[in-house]
């Protein structure tokens, strides 16, 4: 599960010591490993050093000579432990050096503190070191002072991050306390020398292997493993798309959590969280937890849902990242479809394309303007590459419903319309032209690249799209999906055309184009979606394909309570009855406050952007056409 973590970033134990409250001398260090690093008038070193030179079985041997060796060897680490303890440890040799960490007297009141601090994790600091310990006070009539007090402390550099050692320190104290309570392991002079070997093993093993297993007696052993502390991942949102950074499927094991292994199978960089929950047939909350878990271990990252209606913009990082080899060398091979005979576009070309992704311009518009099809670029990979590398950022749509009393700014709308006429004309008139090579240039295009008629101007396109009934659109979508996609590499194919003549095709195509332009290719066949899953899946959220979603709408009767809504709907419906004209859900209205973006709304209401767009037009009472996303009337859409 966890990526192989190097132990290097775990703080290194400088010293580990065992201190008690001595009846005569007060707080004193009984044993420390390595020796002599902590000085102090009371820190007399116990003369019983012979223990250290004896091999590891000494711990058990001292205590209970009849302990069966089988128990010890059953420990998975048994062999290594023994050898590691037999080797004369370097710290013993270096103990003669004059390096002294600090004076014990300075900190003794935090190591053997008054009773109030016992049973609490205490970290104190000297100038250069931090000392973490868990002072324990055990009351008992059999003790001379009616209590026994001890502490096992670990010493680190002052700057060390000790969060991963907190559980270690607690557990060591817990086990030793249990031993003391059961058999006076610590207070009995016969067994207490074993503490030195325990300290030594703690020091060696935790520093070298980040884990240890120290058998103490027949019933107790110290089993420790240090887990590095990762920061908690931010909360997982339903509209996020997890993207694996390692090969997850290779890691799945039988004993994994069932939800996790089910969820992992659907992590492909395309499915978003709520869709994964649906595909894996898992509870949405459990799915979120599973994703969150993977995020925590940094084996996945999240990107946005890819749609042709998305917008992206460059981040400031591009100024540095564009020169980085890991960006400019990897980009071309990653984003290009591997078709024989296709030349991978060079980095200046790709960078130019990135620089033309702008807020307010959908990916589809951008593709048409810059002939992206021609270059053999997989657009989903193209955008996600930028997002992953961190120089591209998704621009979300944040719809906000303006109060009704505000008169719609006529001046502005007029302006925007007039500017759209001048501004959008290059794109719109070039759009059909831009489309031509996309179909004709393809070797597998049917009918030997039929050229459409004269370029359709903006007005005709608009009218054409208005004539297209919603039902017809649905049919078209269904047809696209049901047609099998042949070939080992399902590239960006032309929408499968009806089996009619080329003339009919042309006409239909122009309509499809106008549709896709406006609705950001709900039905655009894409290369990256596995053939089994629907294209619309990237948009229609839970439903496997749009046909399901279309059926789902009438099944959910919604009463339009807002009078304005029904009025505008009547104005806009124009008699066409189709699923796309389902009334907007009343819960949508309060969410239009400019603080919820459309990905969130789409996931929440389980619809795609075209449907939401329709709803917003209905709610706002706009005309639905115009530049950009169109005229939404009282609904303003902020791109940010």
């Amino acid at each position, binding site marked *: 599960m966890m990526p192989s973590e190097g132990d290097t*970033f775990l703080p290194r134990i400088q010293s580990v010591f065992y201190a008690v409250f001595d009846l005569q001398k007060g707080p004193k260090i009984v044993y420390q490993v390595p020796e002599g690093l902590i000085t102090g008038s009371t820190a007399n070193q116990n003369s019983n050093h012979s223990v250290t030179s004896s091999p590891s079985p000494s711990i058990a041997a001292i205590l209970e000579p009849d302990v069966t060796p089988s128990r010890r060897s059953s420990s998975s680490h048994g062999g290594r432990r023994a050898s590691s303890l037999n080797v004369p440890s370097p710290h013993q040799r270096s103990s003669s050096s004059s390096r002294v960490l600090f004076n014990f*007297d*300075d*900190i003794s*009141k935090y190591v053997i*503190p*008054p009773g*109030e*601090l016992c049973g609490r*994790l*205490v*970290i*104190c*600091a000297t*100038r*250069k070191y931090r000392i973490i310990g868990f002072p324990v006070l055990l009351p008992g009539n059999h003790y001379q002072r009616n209590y026994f007090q001890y502490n096992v402390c670990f010493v680190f550099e002052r700057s060390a*991050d000790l*969060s991963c050692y*907190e*559980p270690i320190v607690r557990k060591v104290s817990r086990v030793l306390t249990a031993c003391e309570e059961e058999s006076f392991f610590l207070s009995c002079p016969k067994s207490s020398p074993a503490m030195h070997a325990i300290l030594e093993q703690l020091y060696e093993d935790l520093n070298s292997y980040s884990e240890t297993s120290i058998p103490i007696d027949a019933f107790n052993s110290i089993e420790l493993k240090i887990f590095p*502390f990762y*920061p*908690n991942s931010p909360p997982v949102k339903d509209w996020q798309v997890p993207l694996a950074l390692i090969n997850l499927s290779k890691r799945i094991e039988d004993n994994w959590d069932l939800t996790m292994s089910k969820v992992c199978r659907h992590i492909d960089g395309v499915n978003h969280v709520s869709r994964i929950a649906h595909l894996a047939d898992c509870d949405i909350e459990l799915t979120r937890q599973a994703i969150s878990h993977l995020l925590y271990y940094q084996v996945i990252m999240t990107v946005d849902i890819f749609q042709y209606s998305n917008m992206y*913009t*460059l*981040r*400031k*990082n*591009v*100024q540095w990242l*564009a*020169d980085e080899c890991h960006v*400019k060398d990897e980009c071309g091979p990653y984003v290009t479809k591997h078709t024989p*005979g*296709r*030349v991978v576009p060079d*980095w*200046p070309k790709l960078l130019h394309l990135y*620089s033309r992704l*702008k*807020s*307010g*311009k959908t990916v589809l518009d951008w593709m048409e303007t810059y002939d992206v099809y021609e270059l053999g670029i997989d657009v989903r990979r193209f955008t996600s590459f930028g997002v992953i590398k961190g120089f591209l*950022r998704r621009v979300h749509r*944040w719809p*906000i419903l*303006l109060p009704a009393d505000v008169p719609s700014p006529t001046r*502005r709308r007029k302006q*925007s319309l007039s*500017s759209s006429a001048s*501004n959008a004309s290059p794109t719109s008139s070039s759009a059909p032209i831009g489309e031509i090579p996309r179909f004709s240039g393809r070797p597998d295009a049917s009918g030997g690249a039929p050229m459409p008629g004269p370029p359709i101007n903006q007005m005709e396109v608009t009218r054409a799209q208005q004539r297209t009934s919603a039902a017809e659109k649905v049919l078209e979508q269904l047809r696209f999906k049901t047609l099998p996609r042949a070939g080992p590499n399902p590239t960006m194919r032309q929408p499968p055309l009806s089996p009619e003549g080329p003339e009919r095709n042309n006409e239909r195509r122009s309509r499809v184009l106008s549709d896709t332009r406006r609705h950001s290719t709900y039905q655009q066949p894409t290369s990256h979606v596995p053939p089994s899953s629907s294209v619309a899946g990237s948009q229609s959220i839970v439903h496997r394909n749009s046909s399901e979603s279309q059926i789902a709408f009438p099944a959910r009767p919604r009463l339009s309570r807002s009078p304005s809504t029904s009025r505008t709907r009547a104005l806009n419906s124009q008699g066409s009855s189709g699923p796309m004209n389902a009334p907007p859900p009343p819960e949508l209205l309060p969410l239009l*406050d*400019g*603080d919820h973006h459309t990905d969130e709304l789409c996931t929440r209401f389980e619809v795609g952007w075209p449907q939401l767009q329709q709803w917003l037009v209905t709610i706002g009472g706009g005309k639905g056409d115009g*530049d*950009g996303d169109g005229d939404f009337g009282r609904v*303003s*859409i*902020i*791109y940010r």
Partner: protein
Amino acid sequence: MAETLLAILLVTSSAKGPNVVYRWPPSVENTRPRLSRPRPPVDGLELDNPWRASHYSDNSNDLAAHIEGSVDDIDDYAWRRPTESRDRPMSFSRSAIPASGHDSPCNNERREIDPVANEYQCLFDYTAQFLAGMLCPQRHLCHQKFELVIDNLVFAGHPVCAEPDGMWRFKPERYKPGSRGRGSRHRESNLPERNGSEVSLGGETHSTATPKSSWLHMFHLVLVFDLPDPSSSASGNVARYFDTIYEQIAFTVTAVLFQEQVLSNFVELECDAIGSLETEYMVKGERFSDFASHAQRVSSIATAMKILYDAIKSSNMAHITLNDLPLELQLPPYLDHLLHSEEEFELEFVGRLQNQTDSQLWGRELSFGWRLPALVPWKSLLLLDTDQELDPYVNLRGSHVHAEERSLAEGLIKFLETASVTLSLADMASLLDWDLHSQVYPTVRWLVHHRRAKIVDTVHNGLKTIFSIAPKFDKPLATLAAEFKRDFPQPSISPLPTLMATISNSNSKQADNHFFATVVQSKDLISLYHEVVFWMLKRDLLITLHLHVRVVTTAELKVHVRQAHERKLERLAGHHLRGRRRSSRRGDHGVGDAHEYPRVSMPWLSLSPKTARRYPRRSMDSGQSKPSDVSGSILLEDAEDVFDEISEEDSGEENVGWGSSEDTLEPSMISDPGTASPLERKWLAAMSEGKDEYIARRFALINQYFDGKRTDDEILYTAEISRKQLREVLHHYEEYLQTFLHPA
């Protein structure tokens, strides 16, 4: 703001033992001890399913009992998840009866029955006496950073003590023999200097200590924090967080207190005053909170502690006065972000840390946790609204200003009046006739540090600046919209959401995407919209987009340069045949796979080493011919004359690097034209062929800035050209230049 701050304590030690002299707030909510890893939610689902299967019984109560039994005893001892902990009431300063007195016995043996007396003695579940003892370290640990963590409570401070003879005096300075002197004490208190871990307070080596020894042995201003959940931030951030608070607050205040104690026995006198007041109140049986508020009137330390606490919690500047010594303290505004895992948006600031020069210009104090844009001459100053009492004008015009400072004050007033978002700092300096680095920057730094101004991108006077909308707002849009409507009721100005929608939509256009063209549209409204832009910039709603330029060497250009070079070689070879062969072999040498294709089978000229290298690759894929090769042979005919001139100028022809890995025919970027390689310089020179001389000269002058990192503002400032001249270059060199529009 430091959301984790719980309390500020003043702890002293004397012959009578340690004592908590004063604390603020009067009552502190108990924070429960907890484990540093969140426990999984116990809803039955998380239980060990094999265990449940093997212990299955019809009596479901068994299971429930098991769950409860296993959870109850440790429930109090778990971290709350960050989201839950936010729900905790944060009203630390409530003056009602503290719950601690009743439901959590602080110390069973010593606990008083009297709840009022308990208020005085109980602190964080401990007795004040005990805690004071823990917070007065050994003499060895004084005069250095103190840190103690007990479960979830962090105590941080800088304890200082008297000399062993009971005298308070400055410690001899160890690192700087030249004393800083008393004259610098105001400054010193604002800018603590740390020499490694060894910190020396005060500057004087000679004994200015108070003559009589005092009862006060040690005092320690302690900040108490709720230890942040370590799992909510990256490793090491929590330590940096406490370090910053220590440096900015604890150390600074202690430095001033220590100095005043040495000079005038200030701390001891204040402690006497507070101590006698406390005794008085305890005897009378009055509430601790009453004592705490009364103490504000008798002690400036008590007042300072309260102001400090309130300011830190509310993320404001603290203006405190200690012994008539004014002190301004604050924490970096983005400090608390260290404690939370970074959101994507915040990655924008990562690059900033890499830039050393920026942080140097801002100085050490402003370099961390402030997220300031670079302090550069082509940016502008935006003055923020300030409280009336802190209005610099009031201070500057006040009667207390000395006559000799009058001119300085007037200069500052002029500076403030001149500052504008449409005026770059460089222009401001020339307008005021101030030196940019020695006069303008320090003033800017002071204003920014005191949160009276911020640095923004210069806005075009006619509002022809391209904006985009910030990805994140501090407040909900509805609130912002209401404020906007209040401030701009004019009918000619659309509501804020509409305005933002228009601005954000404008970016998609290639031309006329600036604010004037998309929003203002009428010259009459410019001044009104200046206010709008100003309003939005103040709230960080707008991001200025900048033009960045990169140089692309196209395949055609490279072929062109290559062919010219080969022509020249050939001509040389006409004279020295042997020389030609040598240089052609040199060329081959750098290319590995050229050997696979025997040179004899190809005409030498049509297949240079590089094209030979391309040949096998192309044959592997489609076999299509690249347009560059075709055009290359066409270019061959007419290019030679020009290129002979250019390459002959170049005396170091041998060092150009023909045949090196750089010498490909693929289009590429010149990542830093300012330090272009000889080959890149040849390409740059070739771009100017056939261009007017003045344009070519200007291009040669400014192409060093076309590295994709400099903004248009920077280029205009550094190259001292006008926007029109830049546009001209961009137009003439269109095919070789790529433009980018993104935040700087």
